[in-house]
């Protein structure tokens, strides 16, 4: 059960990371694009199991 919940959690993290990166690519405003990248950082570190 715990493993299943963890798997769902990482899938959710990956999903939001993709959304954030897509938001960065689509952002028309430069500052908003940078904001997407800043928010994306902990998601990437978590997917890579670094933090």
């Amino acid at each position, binding site marked *: 059960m*715990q493993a299943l*919940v*963890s798997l769902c*959690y990482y899938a959710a993290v990956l999903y939001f990371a993709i959304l954030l990166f897509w938001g*960065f690519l689509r*952002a028309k405003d*430069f500052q908003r*694009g*940078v904001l997407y*990248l800043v928010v*994306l*950082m902990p998601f*990437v*570190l978590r997917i*890579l*199991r*670094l*933090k």
Partner: protein
Amino acid sequence: MAHTADATVNRFPVSRLIAFLVFVAVVATAGVQFYQHRNFREPVVLGPGVTEVKRLSDYYPALKGTVNDCNIYVMDSGQPGATFLIIGGTHPEEPGGNIAALTIVENAQVKQGKLLVAIHANRSASTVTRPGDAYPLFFHLKAEDGAVRRFRMGDRWANPLDSWPDPEVYLHYPTRQMLAYMDVRNLNRTWPGRPGGLLVEQTCYGFIELMRQEKVAGMFDFHEAELEYPVISTIVAHETAAPVAAMVSMMLTAEAFPIGMEYSPKALHGLSHREIGDALGVAVFEPEAPEPFLDRVRGATGEELLLTGKDEFVQKAGEHKLLYEKITPAGWPINQRVGRHDTTFSKVAEIWTQMNPDKPLVVEGVPQYDELVAQGLSPFLRDPAEAAPDKVVYE
């Protein structure tokens, strides 16, 4: 106007590329540091008293292959007597605890009875620092010949990479007392543990199995505390440990340094000094040394504060009588904090043996408070590079 709009469109991809490269650089820099911290192996030089190195999974096989399958250093005199367990690193953000355990492994010799030591009881918690608190990832201490030894700084809770997600509310097993959600990763809120539980619950269960199989009579859980916290410079003791702890408190206060004694609260569950005593009848001692690094009013949170225990803001709080322990410009250096733990253990062994002559624990070579204050930690930390390869193991 059209010219301006075109310029904006053309400039933005370049800006976006630069922003992305900066993003990659920041993630890579941070990621490398986190990786190195999480995977750093601390060398331990086996002292003259170590007869065997076991693993916690030798007592509870379900932990095999997990990050918390820590080393258990066995120091067996071969003579009949009491068996004691020492655990350091219950909270790796209190490094006086694991360094005290390390100095015992590298220096002590057991003459009667048996001693078991875990330097990093919650190893997972030593692979992460507290997010948002700017803890240093490592700290460094000089060894006997001037060599510098590097140690992982850790957190109070196990690494979320090893135990996740946390429950909404942590229900302690078996009492079902409601505790804070993250304390399901706190080794001092999950005793007596349970098989099949989350990582730290299983770790506690592993130690319970160790104590059951080794017929442990007494147990030490080394801690440090912020000066703003009332449980400080004291030995928290289960009822089974109270007679020895009270005598040790009086003798050390008269001979070496002030240290109190407090009964383990009966209504707060999950703590080592409550649950282990209740479950197994083991005499549990939990010494608490002062660590200004943990105070919320502290200044810069760096390695210097961790090692020297000097902080002008904590000192100012002391001047306003807001603390439960005194602090002077000399601070609370780590050698002094380790000295308190080592000497408390030595004195407990001495008084225990007087009170239990049929189950003695005689230990020699434990660094003493006055030696550590006068000489620092260097004479008591071995240099792994100078030790025989078969005498070096890794944490």
